[in-house]
């Protein structure tokens, strides 16, 4: 009796203790269900010849015809390659640059300058991508752009028609992406750095460690969990591209599609401009499926090396 009552009492206590947390979960859960789970039923469109009169469930099944088309043309290969390669570059360079800048920021001793630099590097992250696309245009416009008019002319080089020459765009897009996003990631790393016990550095100094040694043996090991979580999260999104970056910044120029078309822009164009719901649903399902496989595999690898850093 007594033990029973005690047990019930503790579980009740537990519920009461966590009740606010459960309540806080509700809005998020509802959002997820409405926004992410219910629409999943729509994946059937990928296997159907969509008819607007009969709707999603009334349309006839056509098996894998929609996918057949995706893979028959070069499209599937191009958009997969672009999405993966860009994201790999973004993850590697993005992480390295963000960590370097975070460490540099940490080394700054003057509080005033520190605040100033923090603000400056975060600013690009807050600019709308549409504005960014026009900033880029101001640089790259064939006629009035800063690069053609200022730099190329000064160097005695011929002006380049940037918006019709695909070979430059992998670099341009990477630079734009890094410029825009490094500030945010940098702040994440910086906040971890601030949390590192100052005692480590003090004892290292007593032992005669120089700055570089401190970074290598204290800062980086302390950053490891943050790095692995952030990288893992990016890998889980490796099949999703930054739509604004790939759609707005190249100004939707056909000549650049070979290097700027990613799965997301392809799906968008298929749906909105070409009006073929079946094919864009097929492309999206492909994206979700391969993305899912990648997350599971990446997580498996991480679990092997460092069980605590794995997501699940």
């Amino acid at each position, binding site marked *: 009796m007594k033990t029973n009552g005690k047990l019930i009492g503790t579980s009740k206590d537990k519920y009461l203790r966590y009740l606010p947390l459960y309540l806080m979960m509700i809005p998020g859960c509802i959002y997820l269900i409405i926004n992410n789970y219910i629409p999943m039923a729509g994946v059937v469109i990928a296997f159907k010849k969509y008819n607007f009169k009969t709707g999603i469930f009334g349309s006839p099944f056509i098996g894998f015809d929609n996918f057949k*088309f995706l893979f028959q043309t070069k499209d599937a290969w191009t958009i997969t390659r672009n999405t993966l390669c860009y994201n790999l570059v973004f993850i590697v360079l993005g992480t390295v640059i963000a960590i370097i800048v975070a460490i540099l920021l940490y080394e700054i001793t003057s509080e005033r300058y520190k605040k100033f630099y923090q603000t400056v590097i975060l600013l690009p992250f807050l600019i709308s991508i549409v504005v960014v696309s026009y900033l880029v245009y101001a640089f790259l416009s064939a006629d009035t752009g800063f690069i053609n008019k200022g730099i190329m002319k000064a160097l005695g080089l011929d002006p380049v028609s940037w918006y019709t020459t695909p070979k430059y765009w992998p670099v341009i897009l990477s630079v734009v992406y890094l410029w825009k996003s490094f500030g945010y990631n940098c702040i994440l790393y910086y906040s971890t750095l601030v949390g590192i016990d100052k005692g480590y550095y003090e004892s290292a100094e007593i032992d005669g460690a120089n700055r570089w040694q401190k970074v290598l043996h204290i800062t980086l090991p302390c950053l490891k969990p943050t790095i692995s979580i952030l990288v893992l999260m990016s890998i889980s999104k490796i099949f999703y591209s930054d739509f604004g970056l790939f759609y707005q910044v190249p100004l939707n120029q056909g000549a650049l599609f070979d290097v700027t078309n990613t799965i997301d822009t392809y799906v968008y164009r298929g749906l909105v401009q070409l*009006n073929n719901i079946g094919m864009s649903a097929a492309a999206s399902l492909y994206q979700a499926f391969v993305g899912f496989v990648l997350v599971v595999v990446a997580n498996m690898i991480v679990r092997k090396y460092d069980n605590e850093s794995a997501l699940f």
Partner: protein
Amino acid sequence: MSRKKLLSIILVGIFAISILAGCGNSGTAGTSDASTIQNTSTAAAGSTQEPYTVKIVAYGDGSSDASSAVAAELSKQTKKLFNTDIELVKGYTVDQLNLILTSGEKLDLFPIMPWELSLATLAANDQIVAMDDLLKSNGADTLAAISENDWKCAQVNGKVYGVPMNKDKAKDTGFAMSKDVADELGIDYKSLTSFDKVEQALLTVKAKKPDIYPFVSSMGQNDLILPYDDLGDSLGVLENSLDKSTKVVDLYETDSYKKFVEMMWKWGKEGLIMPDATSNTDGSTTVLGAKKGFGFFAHFKPGVDNQASAEAGVPIVHSTINQPYSTTSMVNAVWSIPANSEKPERAMQVLNLLYNDPTASNTFINGVEGTHYVYTDNTKKVIDYPSGKDANSIGFSVFGWACPNQQITPVRVGDPTDLWSQLNTYNANATASPAKGFTWNNAKVLNEVTACQNVISKYKNGLELGALNPSEALPKFINELKAAGIDTIVAEKQSQLDTWLAAQK
């Protein structure tokens, strides 16, 4: 501590409830919008129909203020006749229209321009409704007013899917240019009747007026002024609609296309085309109006110079390279009723009124008298902008040709008073393509069409504006089209055309 906890619980609870309530509200808002709860007390005695609001999307820019003023004026008439209110939306983009059509948002009437949307695809997707029965029950006047041949052009699979706009049904193509610049440099604009002569003029402009672009693009595109019949969607065309051949070919493999893009490439190399022509976001008339350009390729109809000059704000003249010809695509710019319309018969009543009633058509095209236009004479046959206002300040762009029937409305100052009869003579005298009246049904090859359009969007503008080198890009373009299934489309189109031709005999 415990008070704080209590407070947090309450706050979280309130937050959760407000979110739930928010969802509930937006859900019901959606349905009430659809079932159109209208103010029934104002229902007119003349009509016993239940109240309904017909939502119309119209071509051309327009502020919401101007649109609702026009809608209110139009509603006065429709309320009395049909107990129907009008809601008017202007300034759509093709993407927005596509989203409305795919998302199931309420819409009752909208224009299908062949260069924006494909009638055949919309019909194949069942995104628009077949109109034959509706025309008989609610649109008898329209049915009678339009010729049998024109109705044929608006058919898919033997069913009518739209009411053809009573506009120019043929086009001649050539070079449009700024009159001021042509006069200043002594260019005789009427004489530019071939590509070579246009090139000479462009070279003159480049040499004598280096501060303006000789050749400009319109919204990053060029008008491909070859006399081909696009047979619905430019995927599989008749190379020359002025001769009798009915062989369907891939436009992008033809010699005339090759010559055109090679010419554009050469012009580009010579610096005759504006830089970044493919990413230009202004219309060609806007560039000319800003005095930054000389001319562009375009297609024409009677009165077009007056129309273009009004758009640009500077006088524009043109030369003709290809004589007037008429294809199905020139006729099947239509007004259609989407499947999203809850009461297609009510939409048809309004469409019928807009096509046949001069007052309604005038309001729909020109707006409210006194606010958007004034009559210049007592006969009420000519209108002008009210004093102190012009094309840019009335709040919307007037696109009469994109409305159901401009020919029952007054003409504008500067137009000949017999403009409409000139237009009809022009339509009647144009050479008809051998495939005029044929409508293409792409239902069997929809995926090939999408795949080909993906390829086209990659190369078309770049090639046609001299930004891509045809010796490299054109073979790639052709090969990718083949991989995407253009040959299947051409074969399917040829067999449909042959069947149609056989039935015409």
